C-alpha cells in the first residue's frame, strides 16, 4: 500500500480534496479529542482534463422546493421563453443562455498617468473577453456615471449623485430598467428583462468594441476641482450600489463580475471610509483598537449589505485597489470575501496590476476562461457525519438539512453555500463533526462518505454540476490511534486550523486568537507527542506531525494574525487571499519558501531562518504576496562592480540570472501577481525577507552563535527554537 503521502496526493489530484484526517475517529468524543477537527480543503473546480462534462445544461425548476430538471414532459412556450414545470406547475423562464457579464466600475479620481494606464488595461481587456460576453461601464468620482453603450448618436450616460444611497428599485427605475406597467401584473415572473433596455448598459463585446474603446479613451479624470488639502470626492459606495442594482435588475442569477478599480478610499456618501480632509488620515489599526474609526462600522455594514445582495444573485465583485495609501479594503472586504477577489497594488501603472488583470482572462487548456460563476456547493454526508461549516469565499444559502450540525465552524448552519466566482484554485475549508455516539460504535471496516455537489455556470456559459464523492474509513481511536495519527495530513491540518484562526481573527482580538491557536497546538502535542511527564527534553512527535508546530510558529507571525506593521487594508487583503487559495499556496503564505543560489551548488531550498542569509548567496523568497530576490553582501558587491558584464565571469552572470528565471516562472502562474522585489544586503527592501525569516539570530544572541552564519535580525520576536522549547515545556506539563 502506498504511503499516506501518496494516498493524499492521489486524492488531491483526483478530487481536489485534502482531509485533515484520512481515518476518521468513530465517535464524537474521540473526534473531539483529536483537537484538529475532521475537515477538508475542497477545490471544487480542480482542473481535471480527463473529466468529461455532461454535455447539456441541467435546467431546474426555480421553485425552491421543487428543483425538478427540465424534461420532455414539460410544456415549453418558445416565444415567451417560458416553460412550466410538470411537477409543481411553476412557470419558469427558460434559462437564458446567459452570457458572461463584465461590468467595469472605474474610479476616475486618479492621477493622470494612473488613469491612462488603467484605460489602456481596460481597452486591452476588451480583446480578451469572449466576444459574446456582455460588458458594461460605470465610472465614478464625485458622481457616478453608468454609460449607455448602445447609443449610436452621441455617447450617453446616466448619472447618480455620489452621496445618496439608493435602493435597487430606485436605481433600476432611474436607469429606465423597469416598466411601470410590468409591476402591476402579478403572477408573472420577474420581468424577463426587456433585453433592449438592459442591453443599453450591457452590450456584447463584439458589438461595442469600438464604441467602448473610444469611450474609455475619452474618459476624463473627474473634472470636479479638488481644493488644496482635500481628497478627491470618490463615491465608491454608490458606484457599487448602482452596479449591483443594475445587475440585479437585469441579470439576476447569472454569472457576472463587477470589476471595481479604485485609486483611493471612498470619501463621500454611503460607504464612505474617510472624510475628504487630508488632515484626517485614514483609520489605522491603532484607531480601530481605540474605537476611533468613525466610519468603519457604518461603511462595513453598507458593503456587507451590498455583498450579500450581490451574492444572492450570483454576482461577484472584484476589487482592484491601486494606491500607495489605503483604499478602504477593510471596509469593503466583504464584497470580495463573499463574492470575488481583491487585487492590491501601488499603482495601475505597474506590471503587478497590468499582468494580474491580464491573467484574469487567462484560458485553460480548453480555451475556456479559468472562471466560473454562480456556484452552489452542497455537501452531503453519511449519517455519522454532519457538516459544521465552511470557510472560504462563500455565502451560506441557509439550507438546513439532516446533515447540518448544530455546532458551527466558519460559515455554518447550512449544507449549501453559494460561491459566486470560482476559479480552479478556489478552495474551501469544510469542517465536519462526527456525531456517532461513543457507545454506538461503527462496525469495523465501515466507511464514512461525503459528497460535494457543485453547480456552477461555466465560463462557456453552460451550467454544470460537478459531483465529488469521497469516503474514508472509520477507525476506533482507542485501538487504532496509531493509524489515525499516521493518517494525519499535517499540511491540510495546518491550513484548516489557520483558516479557523483567521476566521476568528475577523471577529476577535488578535491575542485571543493566538492563545486559542497555542492551546490547540499544545493539546495536539499532548495528544500525539511522546514524552515523559514534565521532561521537555523527552518530547517527540511522530513524522506525520513533525512539521505542524513549525507551521503554527510561522502562522503566529504571519500577517494573517499579526496586524503589527500592516495596515488594516493589508491585513484584509492577506486574509482574503489566504482563505481562498489551495493548500500549496496557503502553505506558502503560512511559511514562505526560501531558495538559495550560490556557487556552492545547485539552487536549493533552505531554512526560513536568519541563518540562511549569507553574503555569498542569492536568496529567492516566495511569500505568495511577495517575491523577493535578495543578494547577499558579497554578491551585491560583485554585482555592483559589474563582474557580470565581463565575459570571464559568465558564471556570475548566470548565477544572477538563475533566481530571476525561477521568479519569472512563479510569476507566470501566480494569481494575483506577487509584488516583485529585487534587493540586496542592506537594501531597504530587504525588510521583506528579514521580517519573514525565523529570527534565530538577533541582537540578543548574536554572539552566542558564531560569526560565520547568517544575519542578525533586530527583533524581539521569539525564534522558532524558543517557541519549540516553550511548546515542549507546556506539552509535557500536566497542568496544561
Amino acid at each position, binding site marked *: 500500500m502506498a504511503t499516506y503521502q501518496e494516498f493524499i496526493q492521489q486524492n488531491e489530484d483526483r478530487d481536489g480534496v485534502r482531509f485533515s484526517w484520512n481515518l476518521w475517529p468513530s465517535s464524537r468524543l474521540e473526534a473531539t479529542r483529536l483537537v484538529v477537527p475532521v475537515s477538508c480543503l475542497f477545490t471544487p473546480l480542480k482542473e481535471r482534463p480527463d473529466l468529461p462534462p455532461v454535455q447539456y445544461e441541467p435546467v431546474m425548476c426555480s421553485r425552491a422546493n421543487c428543483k425538478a430538471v427540465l424534461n420532455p414532459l414539460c410544456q415549453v412556450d418558445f416565444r415567451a421563453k417560458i416553460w412550466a414545470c410538470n411537477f409543481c406547475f411553476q412557470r419558469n423562464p427558460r434559462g437564458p443562455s446567459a452570457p458572461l457579464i463584465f461590468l467595469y466600475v472605474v474610479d476616475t479620481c486618479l492621477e493622470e498617468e494612473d488613469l491612462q494606464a488603467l484605460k489602456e488595461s481596460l481597452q486591452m481587456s476588451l480583446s480578451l473577453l469572449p466576444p459574446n460576453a456582455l460588458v458594461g461601464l460605470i465610472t465614478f468620482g464625485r458622481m457616478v456615471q453608468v454609460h449607455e453603450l448602445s447609443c449610436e448618436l452621441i*455617447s450617453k*450616460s*446616466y*448619472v*447618480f449623485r455620489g452621496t445618496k444611497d439608493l435602493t435597487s428599485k430606485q436605481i433600476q427605475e*432611474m436607469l429606465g430598467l423597469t416598466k411601470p406597467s410590468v409591476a402591476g401584473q402579478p403572477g408573472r415572473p420577474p420581468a424577463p428583462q426587456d433585453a433592449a433596455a438592459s442591453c443599453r448598459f450591457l452590450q456584447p463585446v463584439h458589438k461595442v468594441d469600438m464604441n467602448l474603446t473610444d469611450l474609455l479613451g475619452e474618459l476624463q479624470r473627474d*473634472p470636479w476641482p479638488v481644493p488644496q488639502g482635500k481628497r478627491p470626492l470618490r463615491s465608491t459606495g454608490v458606484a457599487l450600489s448602482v452596479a449591483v442594482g443594475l445587475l440585479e435588475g437585469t441579470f439576476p442569477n447569472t454569472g457576472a463580475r463587477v470589476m471595481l478599480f479604485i485609486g483611493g478610499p471612498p470619501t463621500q456618501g454611503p460607504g464612505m471610509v474617510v472624510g475628504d480632509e487630508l488632515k484626517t488620515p485614514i483609520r489605522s489599526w491603532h484607531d480601530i483598537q481605540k474605537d476611533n474609526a468613525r466610519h468603519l462600522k457604518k461603511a462595513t455594514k453598507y458593503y456587507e449589505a451590498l455583498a450579500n445582495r450581490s451574492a444572492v444573485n450570483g454576482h461577484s465583485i472584484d476589487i482592484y485597489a491601486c494606491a500607495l495609501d489605503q483604499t478602504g479594503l477593510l471596509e469593503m472586504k466583504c464584497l470580495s470575501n463573499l463574492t470575488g477577489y481583491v487585487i492590491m497594488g501601488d499603482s495601475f501603472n505597474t506590471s503587478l496590476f497590468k499582468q494580474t488583470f491580464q491573467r484574469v482572462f487567462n484560458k485553460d487548456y480548453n480555451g475556456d476562461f479559468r472562471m466560473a460563476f454562480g456556484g452552489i456547493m452542497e455537501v452531503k454526508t453519511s449519517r455519522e457525519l454532519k457538516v459544521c461549516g465552511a470557510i472560504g469565499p462563500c455565502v451560506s444559502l441557509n439550507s438546513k438539512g439532516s446533515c447540518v450540525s448544530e455546532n458551527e465552524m466558519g460559515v455554518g448552519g447550512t449544507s449549501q453555500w453559494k460561491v459566486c466566482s470560482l476559479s480552479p484554485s478556489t478552495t474551501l475549508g469544510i469542517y465536519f463533526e462526527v456525531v456517532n455516539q461513543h457507545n454506538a460504535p461503527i462496525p469495523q471496516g465501515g466507511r464514512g462518505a461525503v459528497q460535494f455537489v457543485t453547480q456552477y455556470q461555466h465560463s462557456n456559459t453552460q451550467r454544470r454540476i460537478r459531483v465529488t464523492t469521497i469516503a474514508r474509513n472509520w477507525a476506533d481511536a482507542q485501538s487504532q490511534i496509531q493509524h489515525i495519527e499516521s493518517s494525519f495530513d499535517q499540511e491540510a491540518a495546518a491550513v484548516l486550523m489557520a483558516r479557523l484562526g483567521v476566521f476568528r481573527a475577523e471577529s476577535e482580538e488578535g491575542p485571543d486568537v493566538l492563545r486559542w491557536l497555542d492551546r490547540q497546538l499544545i493539546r495536539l502535542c499532548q495528544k500525539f507527542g511522546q514524552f515523559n511527564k514534565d521532561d521537555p527534553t523527552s518530547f517527540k512527535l511522530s513524522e506525520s506531525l513533525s512539521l505542524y508546530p513549525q507551521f503554527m510558529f510561522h502562522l503566529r507571525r504571519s500577517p494573517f494574525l499579526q496586524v503589527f506593521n500592516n495596515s488594516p487594508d493589508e491585513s484584509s487583503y492577506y486574509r482574503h487571499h489566504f482563505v481562498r487559495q489551495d493548500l500549496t499556496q496557503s502553505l506558502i503564505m503560512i511559511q514562505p519558501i526560501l531558495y538559495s543560489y550560490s556557487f556552492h551548488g545547485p539552487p536549493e531550498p533552505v531554512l526560513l531562518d536568519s541563518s540562511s542569509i549569507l553574503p555569498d548567496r542569492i536568496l529567492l523568497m516566495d511569500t505568495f504576496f511577495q517575491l523577493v530576490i535578495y543578494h547577499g553582501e558579497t554578491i551585491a558587491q560583485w554585482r555592483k562592480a559589474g563582474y557580470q558584464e565581463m565575459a570571464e565571469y559568465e558564471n556570475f552572470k548566470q548565477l544572477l540570472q538563475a533566481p530571476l528565471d525561477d521568479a519569472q516562472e512563479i510569476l507566470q502562474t501566480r494569481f494575483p501577481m506577487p509584488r516583485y522585489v529585487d534587493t540586496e544586503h542592506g537594501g531597504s527592501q530587504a525588510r521583506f525577507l528579514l521580517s519573514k525569516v525565523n529570527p534565530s539570530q538577533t541582537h540578543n544572541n548574536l554572539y552566542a552563535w558564531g560569526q560565520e552564519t547568517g544575519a542578525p535580525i533586530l527583533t524581539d520576536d521569539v525564534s522558532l527554537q524558543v517557541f519549540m522549547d516553550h511548546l515542549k515545556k507546556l506539552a509535557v506539563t500536566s497542568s496544561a
Partner: protein
Amino acid sequence: MWTWHTAAALPLNVRFSPQEGIREKHTGTTSIFPLAPLSLSRFTVRHEHRDALLFTILRRFRDELKMNVNQHTPMASPYGQPQPGYGQPAFAPLDTGYPPPYAPYNGPVSAYQTGEPPQGYSSFTTFPSKAAPANPISELSSPLDLGHGRAPPTSGPPPVSAPQAYNQYGGRHQSDMQNGPPPMTQAPPRPVVSQSYNQERVNLSGPPSSYPQHYGSPPAMSHVTSQMSGMQINSGLPNTAGPGYAPPHSSKPPVSNSFSAAPPATYTQALPPALSAPTQAPPTASQQYYGGPPPASQPPFNSSLPPTSQQPFTSPAPLPPSNQPSFAPPPSYSGPPPAQAPSPSMSQPQQSFPPTQSAFSSAPQGSFPPRAPPPTSSQYPPPPTSTPSGQYPGPLPPQQQPPFSSGPFPSRPQMPPTSMSQSNHLPPESQGPLGPPGPLQQMPPPQHAMPGGYPPQQNGAFGQVRGPQPGFTAPYPAQPNYGALGPAPGPAPSTQKRLDPDAIPSPQASDMPTVQKSRHRIDPDAIPSPIQVIEDDKAKSTEPFSTGVRGQAPPLVTTDFHVKDQGNASPRFIRCTAYNIPCTADMAKQSQVPLAAVIKPLATLPADETPPYLVDHGEGGPIRCNRCKAYMCPYMQFIEGGRRFQCGFCSCVTEVPPHYFQHLDHTGKRVDFYDRPELSLGSYEFLATVDYCKNNKIPQPPAFIFLIDVSYNAVKSGMVGIVCQELKALLDRLPRENPDLDSTVRVGFVTYNKVLHFYNVKSSLAQPQMLVVSDVSEMFVPLLDGFLVNVGESRQVIESLLDHIPEMFANTRETETVFGPVIQAGLEALKAADCAGKLFVFHTSLPIAEAPGKLKNREDKKLIGTDKEKSLFQPQVSFYNTLAKECVAQGCCVDLFLFPNQYVDVATLAVVPVSTGGSVYKYTYFQAQSDQERFLNDLRRDVQKPIGFDAVMRVRTSTGIRATDFFGSFFMSNTTDVELAGLDCDKAVTVEFKHDDKLSEETGALVQCAVLYTSCGGQRRLRVHNMAVNCCSQLSDLYRNCETDTIINFLSKYAFRGILNNPTKAVRDTLVNQCAQILACYRKNCASPSSAGQLILPECMKLLPVYLNCVLKSDVLLPAADVSLDDRAYLRQLISGMDVSETHVFFYPRLLPLMKLESGSLPVAVRASEERLSKGGVYLLETGLHLFLWVGANAQQELLLNIFGTSSFGQIDTTMTSLPVLDNPFSQRLRDMIDSFRAQRSRYMKLMLVKQEDRSELIFRHFLMEDKNVSGGASYVDFLCHMHKEIRQLLS
C-alpha cells in the same frame, strides 16, 4: 375737467324703473344719466377749467342735441368756446383776488416767464404743452389757456405770443403774469408749481373759496369768452373772461392741439360752481353760451388751425386787451364776470338754446340750461358776431369742425366727431365757468350761492338722473356686478337707437319719464376720448423733453419724444403717477391718488439719446452719503467750499474725499459740474468695486443655460427641432458689452422629460456626451467641466449636439415631464460654476412625474367667481417659492417658454421666473408652422436683449416719504431691497411711496433708485436714477400734475396682485372705489362747484374711467368663459413687469384705420369700439401681445388688392400670419408699419387676420375696449355713468 350736465338725467338705461328713490338718494345720478342721456339730451361739454372738462348735457333740446350729435362740427364749436371761457375763468379767479390763488397763478405765470428765460422757451413750451395737451396737468393746459386768455388781456404781449403757439405761451404766461401781477412775484419761483398752485390754490382756498376763485376765474374766463365771442357784449368781467377763453382756445389749440385743452375743463369746474351760484346762474348760462362759442374756438385749436386760431386770437387779443385791463384790475373782474356771464348766456340762450335752457332748468342746470342752449345757439349765431375776431368763426360749429379735423384731428378722419363731442363738452364747461365768475367775485356768496344754485339744477338733474339711475342701478345694481354687468350692455344698445326720442322726453319729464329714458344713451363722442388725448399730446410734444425742472410731467408714453437729461431721470427710466405729491399723508390719503413710480432701470434708449455714462470713482467706490448711503447725485449740495456735501435725502453732511474734491464756483456749483455725470445728470452708472460683489469676489461672466423639454409633445409639436435649429444661430448673438468682441457669456445645454440630460460639449471632445440624471428627487449637476462652455471654442461640438437632439428624441414616447428639478439643475450648474446666469426653459406640460415640484391638475372652472378663486392664482405648492429664493441668491434668472396643449398651471410654474426677474412666454397649442415665427422672434429677442444679473435695487427717498411697496418680477427678502436675479431692459418695477412725515414744498421729494448688477460682461455696476418731484399743499396741484397711464399701471399691478388674496369681485370693487374716491376728492376739493349731475374729471385723469374700465374688463379680473386659468395667470404675471407704455397699449389697444396710409406718419388711431369700424375699411389693432388685421366686409377692392393681392373678400385666407409681399407702396407701408410695431414691443406679435362677421371676430371684439363685452364688461359709456354714480354717492 369734464362736467356732465345732465340737465335731464336721462334715463340711461331702460332698467331704471325706480327713479324717484334713486333720485333722492343720488342726486348725482342724474349727472350720470346725463352721460347716458347724451342721446336724449345733448351733451355740452365745456372745457372751461384747465383741469377739467365739463360736459354739459342738455336734455331739452333733443333736436339740438341731435343736431349736435349729428353735426359734430357744431359740437366742436362749443369746445372752442368753452375753452376760452375756461381759460379766462381761471384767470378770473385769480384776479378775483384770491391772493393766494393769484400767487399761484402768478406763480405759474411767472414761472412760465421765469422758466422761459432760464430754461429757455422750450421749457415753457413743454409746460404749456403739458397744459394744453390736456396732459394730466390740466394746470398747464389751463395755464396755457389762461395764458392765452391772459395774453389777450395783455393784448400787447399776447399778439406776439399768439402768432406762435409757443411764443404765445410765453406770452400768455406773461399775460398771466400780468393778470396776476401780484402773484407774479410769487409765481416766479416755481413755474410749474405755480401753475399747479393756481389750481391748488383755487382748491385750497377751500372748497368754497376755491370754488369761488374758480368761479371767479371762470367768470372771468367766461367773460372773456363772451368777450371773445360776444366780447363786447359783456363788459368788464365778461370781457375778461371772454378774452380768457378766446385765448385759451386759441392757445390751447396751438399748444396741444388737444381739444381736451385741459384748461377749459378746470375752468369749467370753476365755472360750474359759479353757475350754481344763483346770481351767477345766468352767467353760467352765458358761459354755456360761451361754451357754445368756445367749442368753436376749440375747434380751431384742435385743428391745425391753432396758428390760424391763434391768429384769430391774436386778433381777439386786441379785444382782450380791453378785457385784460379788466383782468388786471381784479375788482373789475368781479364786476365784469357777472355781467358777462349773464350777457353771454343771454345771447346764446336766446339764440338757439332756449330749449336747451329749459332743459337745463329742468336739469341741474337750472342755470345751465340757459347756458347750454345759449352756448350752442348763441354761439352759432353769436359766434359769427363774436368771432369777428376770426376765432369765433372757427368756433362756429361748422367752421369749427373743419378746424378740428384739420387741426389736432386732422389726421384722424373720425376724429372730428370726437372733437366735436368734446367741443360740446367744452361749451358746458365754459358755461360753468361763466356762471362761476359771477359768484366768484363774491367769494362767500358764490359758494353759498353755488350750493343753492346747484341744488336746483342738480335737482333737476337728479330728476332726470333718477330716471336713468334706476336704469343704472339695475345694470349696476351692485358695483361689483358692474364689471360683469350683463344688463348694462343690453340696455345700451337699445338705448342708442332710442336715445334721441327718449332723451327729449326725459329732459322734460326728467323726473319720472326716466324709465323710458333708461334706454337712452350717452353719445360716445361726448365722453373723453383716449385717442384725442393721445393725439393732443403728440401734437404738443414737438420739443425735446428736458428733465431739468422738478415736477414736470413728461409727455405721454404714446408720444414719440426726445429726452434731454438735465438732472432727473428720463421718463423712459422713471415715470411717476404724480409729479406734485401732497405734502402730507392726510392729503394723500384724502385724494387716494396712488403715489408711485414705474422704474425701468435698464430701459433701452432710442439711438439718439445717450445711454447712461459710466462713472468710476476709483478704488474707494462710489461716493455716498455717510448716513443714508445715497449715491452722489445732483441733489447733493456741496458746502464749505466744496469740502463737504450735504445729502439731499437725509441732510447728513459728509466729507468729500480728497480725490474727489473740487472748488465751487460763485453759484455754489462745483467747477466740474458739467464734467461729471453724477452731478449733472439724472441717470448714470458707477463702476462698482469688489466691495459690491458677492463674497467680495469679482463676478465671473454669466452663463446661459438652455433647458429643453424633449417629451413626446415637445417633439411632436416641432418645438424641439425649432429650438435646436435656432440656437445654432443665436449663439452668435449672445449679449456682449463690446460689439466687436465675442460674448463672454458661456452656454450650457440640458434636455429633459422625466429625467434630465446634461451635455458635455467640451471643445476637446469629438462628439458631445449626454449625461442622464434620473435622480430628480435631489437634483445635482453631473458635470462641471464641459457643461458651461465658450461658444467660440466648442462651436463644433455644440452644433453637433443641436443637430443630434431632435434626432435622438424623434421617437420618444415619454409624455411625463418634471419641472422643479429642471430649474434646480440650472441653478446647481450656476452654483457649481460660481456665476450668475439665465435659464431658458422650454416646457410643454404639467409636471406630473414624481419629483419635487410635482403638480396636479387643479383647474376647476367652478371655482371661478367664488371666494376660492384666488387660490387658483396661488402656487399649488410652496416648493417653487423656496426654489425661487435659492435662484435669486445665486443670481439665477429663469425665462420660461411654455408650449402647453392643456392646463399647465402657469400660476405655479411662473413663480420662479417671476421671482427671479425672468419672463414667461406662452404659446398655447403651439404649431411649428403658424407659431414658429412668433416664438423664434421672442426667443431671439430674449436671448439678445441687454440684461444685468444678480441685481439688487434700492429705492432711497428724501425724508418724508418712503418706498413701501413694490410690484414686478423680483424677490424681496427684506422690506427695502428688491433682488433681481436677472434684470433685462424690458422689466419695470412699480414702486409705491407713502408718507412717513410731512414734505416741504421747497425741497420737494427726491427719489434715487440704485441698481447694483453684473453686466453681461461680468462687470459689477451700479446704475443710478434720480428723480425729483414737487410737493404741494393744494390738492388741485396734485390733480393737475399727474399721469393717468402710470396710475393705471400701478392700479392694475396692485389689483392683479390683490387677486392672490382677495376675491376677484372684491378687487374690482376696490378698484372702482378707489377711482371714485380719487375723482370725488377732486370734485369735492378742486372742482368748481357745479351740479351733482355733472361729472367732473380732472384734466389729467379724464381718461381714468375708460382705462380703469379696461383694467376691470381684462381677462384677469373678468374672465370670459373661454379664457383659461392659465391665460389669466399668464397675463397676471405679465402685467407685473410691464412699464407704462406696455400697460397702456395692453389695456387700451390701439386701433388704426388703414384706409389711407401715408409714409412717415401713422394713421390716427380710432377709439376701440365697434362703432368706429367702417365696413368698408381695414383696421389694424395692436395690444402689445396681439396684432389683428380686421377686414370690413365691404372693404374696398383696391384696398384688398393692395394688401392681399386679391380683390375678393372671400378669397382672403384668414390663416395667414404674415401679409403677402406685394410690390405696391401701400403693401410696403403696411408691412413696414407692422414691422415697426413689432419692433417696439418686447414680445413678437403674431398677426391674426380677422374678417368681419367671421367667427374669429369674437376674439377681435374682445379687444374693443370701449364696448361692452360678452363676459359682462361694461361699455365705456356705461362705466362712466357708473363711475359718476359712485362719485356722487361719495359726495353725498
